């Protein structure tokens, strides 16, 4: 599904290398987790994958279902099935959450040459999916993320993901700021989208999310590289011993 090969990325303004050769492959239907110390480049990786400005790819390739995505505009990547649940979701004053969702869904449908969703189908889907995330109709009417609590913003990201039905989902610290119950809701939301050939890349600092979303593969990222890859037990190791042991091991 997602193949990243030797990805090297500089900050455009500073000529500073942040990703120093990332290799990672997420197979269809699998959940990969990335853990790693603060500042190791996890969010940067998610931004580069989704096409944010300000980064310069100096080497390497990224393909999504064998299509080179590095040449695509962000919206083309989105329509190709790439979704990023942001670490810090953005507020858009004056734009209703529903309006935003519908505009996004239809933009992607159009880009793929599909018909627009009918107003009734859309409403039905939103209500259903919002309900399972315990997002009430009041929140759907409010402007996108404006005045939402941290946890509400994260749940809203998952609602968008559920509506857009992407092929490849990247979740950047979706668990941070969530209370225990909200974390279960988010995990349930993710798990219900699992399978069906969908790939996940879950960036997190904590084992507790991975208790609910069982990963197939766990990667450790440090200083702009994937330094270790293993099974779910690797996350437990981090939880118990921190990164120092792993890092000295690979150094």
């Amino acid at each position, binding site marked *: 599904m997602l193949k990243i090969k030797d990805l090297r990325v500089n900050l455009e303004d500073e000529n500073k290398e942040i990703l120093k050769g990332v290799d990672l492959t997420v197979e269809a239907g699998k959940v990969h987790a990335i853990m790693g110390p603060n500042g190791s480049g996890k969010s940067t990786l998610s931004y580069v994958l989704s096409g944010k400005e300000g980064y310069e790819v100096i080497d390497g390739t990224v393909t999504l279902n064998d299509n080179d995505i590095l040449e695509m505009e962000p919206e083309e990547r989105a329509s190709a099935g790439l979704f990023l649940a942001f670490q810090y979701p953005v507020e858009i004053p004056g*734009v209703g959450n529903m309006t935003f969702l519908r505009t996004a869904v239809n933009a992607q449908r159009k880009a793929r040459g599909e018909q627009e969703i009918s107003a009734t189908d859309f409403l039905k889907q939103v209500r259903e999916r919002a309900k399972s995330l315990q997002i009430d109709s009041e929140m759907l009417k409010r402007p996108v993320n404006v005045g939402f609590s941290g946890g509400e913003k994260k749940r809203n990201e998952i609602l968008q993901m559920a509506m857009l039905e992407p092929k490849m989902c990247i979740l950047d610290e979706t668990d941070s700021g969530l209370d225990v119950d909200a974390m279960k809701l988010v995990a349930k939301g993710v798990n219900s989208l699992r399978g069906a050939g969908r790939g996940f890349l879950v960036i997190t600092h904590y084992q507790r999310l991975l208790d609910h979303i069982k990963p197939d593969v766990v990667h450790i990222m440090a200083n702009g590289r994937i330094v270790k890859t293993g099974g779910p037990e690797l996350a437990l190791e981090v939880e118990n011993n921190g990164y120092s042991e792993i890092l000295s091991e690979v150094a």
Partner: protein
Amino acid sequence: MASFESVEVKEGVDQETVDAVRDVGGAYKYGWETDIEMEYAPKGLNTDIVKLISGKNEEPEWMTEWRIKAFNRWGKIGEPKWSMVNYPEIDFQDQYYYARPKSMVEKPKSLDEVDPKLLATYDKLGIPLKEQMLLAGVEAGNDAEQGERKVAVDAVFDSVSVGTTFQKELKNAGVIFCSISEAIKEHPDLVKKYLGSVVPITDNYYATLNSAVFSDGSFVYIPPGVRCPMELSTYFRINAENTGQFERTLIIADKGSYVSYLEGCTAPKRDTAQLHAAVVEIVVEEDAEVKYSTVQNWFPGDEDGNGGIYNFVTKRADCRGDRSKVMWTQVETGSAVTWKYPSCILRGNESQGEFYSIAITNNHQQADTGTKMVHLGKNSKSRIVSKGISAGFAQNTYRGLVSMHPKAKNSRNYTQCDSLLIGDKCGAHTVPYIEVKNNSSRVEHEATTSKVDDDQLFYCRQRGMDEEEAVALVVNGFCKDVLQALPMEFAMEAQQLVAISLEGSVG
């Protein structure tokens, strides 16, 4: 503050906006011209031209004299220079002051007799001039019952009013809605009493010029206690080249009446600039309420700043009676130069004035716009919400005066003034003037300036919208407070305009 009930913007409108923009493909979509035989008065301005215009309109002598008085005054004053707009000097003698389609020389008695080319023009602009025929039973079917709201239209083409719809139905309600040239003939007492009573002929350079040479415009009178049964609207179209357009609108809301009035404007693309200097006067008596909404979409000039309309407009409402209310809502997207300050004279006790404005400038457009709230009555209230959006090389200035006179005890004003910049070659300026001459009144002013946020745009694009959709969505969100103040029909159009006028502003 107690405010007018606001009209909700329909959910999902933004998507339609985006579609409309895509269909239009970014061009100014009203830039075509109607090929029609015109009759012109000779170029230039002098007493004879003023008399000629008056004569063409078959005006009574008092009207001709009124015009000449204005013309003499105009010759003695100079153009105002205090605004933040730059434009080449206007040669007032190199303009036509009167142009009308030949087919309008014999004024048609009904819309059926109007030149099909003119009707086709309005049809192409999407202006419903058919409604009257529909009512008269000419058109089969019962479309009228499909729950659509009726809007009566006065269509003004260059210097003349082409026709006004729904006149009969309005007449049954006691409402007078006709062209001002007709009102001068048919309702001279009302016109004599009110014309120039809000904007006197001495008011300012452009208003004085307008008083001398106005050709046509709309007249509205709502009798006491009447709630106008439908929205009224005037649609201005400049077609002829090198012709100034000078409309005059007079709206009188008698005691306890209500009317909502809409104004729309477009012009063909031309590479020479054209002058437009309109005057709108509104009289609001005791307990009456007027909503005046404008979607101004005159040709803004091309990307390099050639051509476009120079728009110098004087709009003022006089809230004469106690508890009278007026609400100005404007969406200014067109014109090369805009100089416009719809104002409220809050004379009555507990009178209310509101001003909601979106001004968008792109490419080389310049707008200097805002409002004046002059509080004279006790417990009077005003509210100003201004949203200025600047892109390209454009300059956008909000200029607003709030004045509390000694007698305007316990009055309130709230001003919110937000500017949004797209790119780094444009400018936004806020120039508030505040005068408070009593110690029980309160004036609040808030202003913000921000850049369109790259993170917001990226967020939208990550969800699948292209860059222009993303800008349209974010900017429409920024303007939401004002869009909500518009009547439904206009809210849709305005959202689309916001998007269209920002085409090419990113990337």
